[in-house]
């Protein structure tokens, strides 16, 4: 790789004008991408990894500007060329794949037309020939029956299919460089693997360079030649992938590696400092018994009813944590909503703490005596907090509605209880007066957990509680959840698509597919000797760090 690199970024500094003056989002960042090379830019939210790539394409929003540095692409100084030249480069020479494929596609135009747009825009086709080329582009990204799908609208396609279409648009003009910004976040693991494999294969076929922006070290390890690690707007490590994982030089890289779930690591191994493991709990009497639970949704316009949950049965014991794993659409969210009594089942029984709760209508369960004993931590910490309420008010709400002695004891006692809860979940008490938009993702997650444990629940459903968090925050939050469970004697039903995370917290795992539970057993057995081929496919699709990366001796 001694030749001139395709993309060369030197001392790039990007500034954002904000209310409180100028903020440097990226400071003196340098990296280069050779022809045919796949470079991973890895970092946590706020590290500036997206901003640096947006600067390359000059699509920063109005408040942002390139303050210093140079960006050279194939001999052209991208930071200096006029906007018109830049518009020609985008899509034709450098393309981008965005995080949310549904948002990146125009919802009211057929996908084939959207591919034609970019071809015609860059004068690679005229309307007469565009259609054949668009169909060809769809075929290239392995979309079955491309002639029919040419007419499909984005809402008719699954998330993985939409991302393939976005890739088809990005690659339609055969660019030399593809920038993929978290291309598989929000996709299932098996879909993620298919999309990533496709991208790598196409880039190899066409000799294209790829910049993969991701927070997932496992993904970067599996697909990248070289890794650039960013922290707080600066590059802290830039080395061939094998080297980064075998011998990480920067402490931040080591911390990231350590926080990433790995097959051989336990929950405590993810933390930077050794902590004694939580006291193990022996499972007690059955707490939640679900029998032949069914949920049918009415078909639209006379279509056959759709069975989202198809006669499932399972038991959660006291002090146990049970994992419920499956990909999107498998019925796991419907199941948890029914158990939480937010949704009425079509048939079947839900026995909780010795009482049948499945027959109490969801609309009336708010005043049921067991309401406080059955709580939930939601997937998206931002969405699950009222944007107009302070953290204190969110945590105090269940106490005010269903609380015991605090309810009538006045504001002082309420405040004291909320502060105790905040301390318990590791949230600094001075943050209680902030609104959700003033808190970080991890802090919001803690508010959500504090609210869920405010009423001393017996069973907490954790609905992908760490899906929206950075790996280092995820490691801390997972450990916090394990500690709280031991301290408060709760049981967990952990709903997730990520076997890697479920494994860390759960004693037992169920795998769900198409509304049915296809496999159930001890975590260790499911992980090491799955009996169902689907479970094996799920396990195989998880991108892993190379074994050498186990940072046992790294710290």
């Amino acid at each position: 790789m001694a030749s001139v690199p395709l993309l060369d970024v030197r001392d790039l500094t990007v500034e954002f004008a904000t209310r409180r003056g100028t903020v440097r989002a990226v400071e003196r960042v340098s990296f280069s991408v050779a022809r045919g090379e796949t470079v991973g830019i890895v970092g946590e939210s706020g590290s500036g990894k997206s901003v640096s790539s947006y600067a390359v394409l000059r699509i920063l929003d109005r408040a942002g500007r390139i303050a210093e540095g140079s960006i050279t692409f194939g001999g052209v100084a991208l930071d200096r060329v006029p906007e018109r030249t830049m518009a020609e480069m985008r899509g034709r020479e450098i393309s981008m794949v965005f995080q949310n494929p549904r948002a990146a596609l125009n919802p009211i135009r057929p996908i084939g037309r959207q591919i034609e747009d970019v071809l015609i825009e860059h004068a690679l086709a005229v309307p007469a020939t565009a259609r054949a080329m668009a169909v060809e582009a769809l075929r290239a990204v392995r979309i079955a029956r491309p002639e029919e799908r040419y007419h499909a609208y984005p809402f008719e396609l699954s998330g993985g299919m939409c991302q393939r279409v976005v890739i088809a648009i990005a690659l339609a003009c055969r660019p030399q460089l593809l920038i993929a910004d978290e291309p598989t976040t929000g996709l299932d693991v098996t879909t993620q693997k298919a999309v990533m494999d496709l991208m790598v294969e196409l880039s190899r076929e066409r000799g294209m360079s790829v910049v993969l922006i991701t927070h997932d070290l496992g993904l970067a390890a599996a697909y990248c030649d070289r890794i650039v690690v960013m922290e707080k707007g600066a590059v802290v490590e830039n080395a061939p992938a094998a080297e980064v994982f075998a011998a990480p030089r920067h402490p931040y890289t080591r911390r990231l590696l350590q926080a990433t779930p790995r097959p051989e690591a336990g929950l405590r191994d993810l933390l930077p400092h050794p902590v004694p493991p939580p006291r193990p709990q022996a499972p007690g009497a059955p707490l939640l018994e679900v029998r032949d639970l069914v949920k049918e949704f009415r078909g639209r316009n006379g279509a056959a009813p759709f069975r989202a949950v198809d006669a499932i049965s399972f038991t959660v014991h006291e002090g146990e944590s049970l994992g419920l794993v499956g990909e999107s659409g498998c019925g796991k969210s419907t199941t948890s909503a029914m158990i939480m009594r937010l949704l009425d089942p079509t048939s079947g029984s839900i026995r909780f703490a010795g009482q049948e709760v499945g027959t109490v209508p969801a609309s009336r369960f708010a005043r049921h005596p067991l309401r406080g004993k059955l709580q939930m931590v939601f997937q998206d910490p931002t969405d699950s907090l009222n944007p107009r309420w302070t953290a204190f008010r969110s945590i105090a709400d269940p106490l005010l509605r269903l609380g015991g002695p605090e309810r009538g004891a006045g504001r002082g006692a309420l405040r004291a209880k909320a502060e105790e809860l905040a301390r318990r979940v590791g949230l600094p008490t001075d943050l209680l007066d902030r609104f959700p938009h003033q808190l970080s993702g991890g802090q919001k997650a803690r508010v959500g957990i504090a609210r869920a444990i405010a009423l001393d629940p017996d069973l907490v459903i954790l609905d992908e509680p760490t899906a929206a968090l950075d790996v280092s925050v995820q490691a801390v939050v997972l450990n916090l959840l394990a500690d709280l469970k031991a301290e408060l004697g709760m049981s967990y039903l952990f709903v997730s698509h990520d076997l890697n995370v479920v494994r860390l917290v759960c004693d037992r795992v169920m795998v769900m597919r198409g509304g049915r539970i296809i496999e159930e057993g001890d975590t260790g057995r499911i992980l090491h000797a799955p009996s169902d081929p689907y479970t094996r496919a799920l396990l195989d699709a998880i991108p892993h760090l190379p074994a050498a990366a186990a940072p046992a001796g790294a710290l």
Partner: protein
Amino acid sequence: MHAPVPASIAAAGPAPRYGWLRHLRHVVTGNPVTGVAFALFLLLVIAALFGPWLVPYDPLATNAAAALQPPSAAHWFGTDQLGRDVLSRVVVATRLDLAISVAAVALAFVAGSVIGGLAGFYGGWIDRVAGRCLDTIMAFPLFVLAMGIVAAAGNTVENIVYATALINLPFYARMVRAEVNVRREAGFVQAARLSGNGGLRILAFHLFPNALPPLMIQVSLNMGWAILNAAGLSFIGLGVRPPTPEWGIMVAEGANFIVSGEWWLALFPGAALMLAVFTFNLLGDGLRDLVDPQRRT
């Protein structure tokens, strides 16, 4: 495509506890237009509250000797055909015009929010029935509808208020319905259910406050319309009757004298009307910023 501002920027710096007044100051000083709007609004409120004590003449006192005098040092806005001081009448009229529009908008806001909230939250037949009723109101030319209501129900100030409220109600109901509907399945609503909140409580304390920022824009625009509407009804002889000072009547009476050159009779009440509408239109963004905690960065 916009690059996301990194979280480090959003979270940087301490976020102190903002008091209501500090927030108000921040909103007013943050945008000069909002500052001007709040100043004009304050002027209107002062005129409405203290008008009768501030004006130099009794707005109802006639003086045949000084009829139809052009603006002068003694009568800044001149006098009308009965010798009444136009300035005094314009200032005193503020109270009635503001009272009618505030009452009408408040009524429309409350009733519209209740109807829209229930329709958006429960959906089903409530939504369908409410939606069709609102469509029916919207199908009429609104000013003609208001005329009809006042003419049929009786020529009183209360009926102007009711008529104005009714024609504005659908805008609030639709907006609240849409805002509630998009958030009905949000995570924080489900979390509120788990905390033991019943449906109505969730609607009132969790969902409705989230509809307030866009509603505030609607309120301020509506205030302008309501003032115009009340003045318009008076202009055509419905509602407020002479000799009560009211901008609409004053413009209507003054219009007769424009041809003979006495322009000040219609111009000054018309300008006051324009200023009031202008103020409320400017006020919208400021009001929204005031009720939106996300602006308290």
